[in-house]
């Protein structure tokens, strides 16, 4: 197994950064001084929502780990141990899970000193590493030092790339769902792109239907399946596509939860505001929108009766959305959310099935819908 050139050089940068940190700490201790480590905390108050950029950390007041304090000393010791683990894994081209990292603290001589009680402690440590290992003023996503979550999401379409497997892959030839998105999209090399847009679909069944109906080929688009709330890897992949100037169209339910899904893609989240590369402010909400159902010329007005009553938790979600800056400060999303609250109903992608059309008609309906909605957003499709 070997990975491409970009991947290697990127990894070297990270390794050298970790080496620097370890060396500095070693010298400090050798000199007989207690180390002190500054970082920008994760307080939600330190995050601003900037339209067009998403959530941005303010980094005004740094926090400090003061090596003279017992708790801080323990954290620094954990940090040093963690960094040496990341270093070794990166050197070998290996990744680890959060749970792996937790188990690394069960190595006997480590357990005796650090006495880690449960995984939430080691998770916090990873979080801290993201904040301490900074590049160009941004925190480093844990994927870059090899800690990956369970990946989620697929992408189908005429895009050629090389992922960590080192193989050259065309995403329309990797299986019926396309390519299973890499755990570390930052490290994927993209060789060739032959799509005019990427449509990211909340639900797998809808994405599959679009592929089955040959829509990627007909419209020259890629179709990604988010499998619900998108994973970090999927969000990073969308960012990569946008970096390659592929227009991003997001197709989700008409519901307060789906507004969150879209806002996460568009603006990242407050919790991960310090992690670069997870927001795609260029993304467009293709549908389903409230106008689809409730405008007199809405394309789904005819199947308005398929809407379901919002449940208590739906309503609560919509009410909470009012406090999410990326929704409440976004003109479109705020309007969508308020309208949902007012009408008390929600729509789903499956609603297309409530037309009861013959399938060939359904296919045409999909194409008409995608084309005309994309056009209104300034994305022209074949």
């Amino acid at each position: 197994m070997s990975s491409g050139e970009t991947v290697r050089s990127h990894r070297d940068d990270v390794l050298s950064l970790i080496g620097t940190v370890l060396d500095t700490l070693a010298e400090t201790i050798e000199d007989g001084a207690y180390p002190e480590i500054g970082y920008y905390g994760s307080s939600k108050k330190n995050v601003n929502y900037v339209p067009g950029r998403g959530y941005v950390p303010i980094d005004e007041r740094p926090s400090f780990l003061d090596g003279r304090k017992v708790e801080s000393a323990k954290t620094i010791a954990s940090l040093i141990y963690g960094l040496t683990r990341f270093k070794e894994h990166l050197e070998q081209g290996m990744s680890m899970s959060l749970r792996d990292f937790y188990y690394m603290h069960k190595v006997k001589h480590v357990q005796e000193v650090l006495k880690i009680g449960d995984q939430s402690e080691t998770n916090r440590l990873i979080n801290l590493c993201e904040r301490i290992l900074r590049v160009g003023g941004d925190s480093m996503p844990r994927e870059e030092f090899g800690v990956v979550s369970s990946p989620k999401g697929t992408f189908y379409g005429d895009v050629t790339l090389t992922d960590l497997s080192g193989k050259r892959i065309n995403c329309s030839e990797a299986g019926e769902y396309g390519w299973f998105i890499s755990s570390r999209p930052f490290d994927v090399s993209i060789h060739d792109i032959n799509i005019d847009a990427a449509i990211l679909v909340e639900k797998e069944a809808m994405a599959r239907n679009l592929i089955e109906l040959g829509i990627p080929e007909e419209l020259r688009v890629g179709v990604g399946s988010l499998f619900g709330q998108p994973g970090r890897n999927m969000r990073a992949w969308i960012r990569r596509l946008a970096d390659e100037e592929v227009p991003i169209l997001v197709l989700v339910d008409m519901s307060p939860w789906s507004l969150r899904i879209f806002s996460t893609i568009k603006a990242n989240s407050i919790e991960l505001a310090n992690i670069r590369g997870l927001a795609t402010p260029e993304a467009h909400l293709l549908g389903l929108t409230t106008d689809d159902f409730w405008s007199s010329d809405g394309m789904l007005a005819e199947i308005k009766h398929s809407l379901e009553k919002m449940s208590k938790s739906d309503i609560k979600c919509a009410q909470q959305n009012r406090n999410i800056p990326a929704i409440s400060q976004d003109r479109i999303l705020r309007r969508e959310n308020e309208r949902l609250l007012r009408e008390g109903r929600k729509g789903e992608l499956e609603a297309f099935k409530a037309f009861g059309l013959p399938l060939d008609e359904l296919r045409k309906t999909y194409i008409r819908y995608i084309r005309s909605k994309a056009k209104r957003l300034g994305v022209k499709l074949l």
Partner: protein
Amino acid sequence: MQQRPQTVTDIVELSVSAWFYRNRTIAGFDNPARSLYVSIREIVENSLDACEDAGVVPAIEVTLRRVGGSELSDRLTQGPQTFCLTVHDNGTGIPRTAIPKLIGKMLAGTKFTLRQTRGTFGLGGSLALLYGQVTTQRPVEIVTGLKGDPFNTRLVMRLDIETNTPIILEETQIPKDPSSHGTSITFYLEGDWLRSKRKIVEYFAQTSIIVPYASIIFTSPDGTRFEYPRVIDSMPRRPREMKPHPRGIDVETLKNMIANTRSKSIAAFMTSSFQRVGKSTATNFLRAAGIDSTRDPHSLSDKELLKMMQVLASFSGFISPSSESLSPAGVDLLGAGIGRLEPEFTAVTQRAPNVHEGHPFVVETAVAFGGALQPGLRLYRFANRIPLLYDEGSDVSTRVIRELNLRNYGLQQTDPLAFLVHICSTRVPYKTVGKEYIGDVDVVRREIQLGLQWCLRKIGEDVRRHHRVQRRQKRENKLQRYYTFMAHVLSDATGREITTRHLFGE
């Protein structure tokens, strides 16, 4: 047509004792287990009162033994059996003439004065004797002697229930040491030891906490001896009998007092019959009530008396009732008492006297932490120095504790904590005749709350200070350990030997 209802023809008047006996459940005598517990408690409380009245640190000996053939004692689980209860105290003793009235009659009480006593309803002891007599048909034996007398008087007597009068069956005199004094009561009663054992033993344990100046020995039917030697020699101040406070007096009592007064003017009546009413208070009051202060009290009409009572209840010029009629334990005694639980830290406080419906009361609280205490909260409740063992869940103290936020004091539910609440009053606001728990009266609840909060603050500080010292010691060790670990890991990672020599020396 039944024109003459039967109820009219058959009416009889019951004696007090007959009525009470018919309705004995309301005083706690509702089954053999409960009756045994209540009987012991009532007699012991009487003895404690007798000693304290005598100004003598109490020494009480209680013996309960099973009566009857050995074939009975084999059937331990077979419900009620007959017991013989003897309670001996070193109190004043009772003068020969007072014995029948004090022991053999119900509803004896004192006139127009208020003083804290243990037996609020004044009939528990008599009812216990009555219960024993009814269930076993055996008479009561009293041996009592005063200091200085050369002999004890021994009386055997029974109570005629229908007429509420004592009948003396035997009387003898037994020579004794003139310096000794005290009373010993022996009587038989039906009971269920197996089912009451836990409460009775708990009763003695808790009594030893609230009466730490008493020496108590209880010998149980199983032959086990529970001994609580006294742990402090001082006694609480004796409560003084006080004239009633004007607030809360009702017209009937007022009329009765006037009927018995020798005062010629209503103003003189006021100052001589009520506590804390001086001349100027009396004058101000009578002016407010629109009564001429020179009026002969006996000349007041019913209507005037009613008006007077209404003004008595609302007049704001009275000084709060005196708490001298109360006898709180005091922080020293309570501290000694709670020391029986062998805790690590203790906080005790006494609240200032307060008033509930014209009756003064004092709340004392204590909180103990750690030591021999088990994890979790425990509550010890006392009223006029009697432990309250039933219906803890309904008691106002339980409610207060439930509403305390322990975390505010750096404590938690699982900490080894004991709470003690003692309320003294000339009338404790019990919710039931059985004296089982204290009602949720606002002013009482607030005193308990403030008392416990004060204690918790102190305990919280003690615990924090204690932890702080422990923590400092640990800190040094840990720091060194973490840096040794860092040096070790860094050595491996950087490939050079990193040491903590400059940090901690060799």
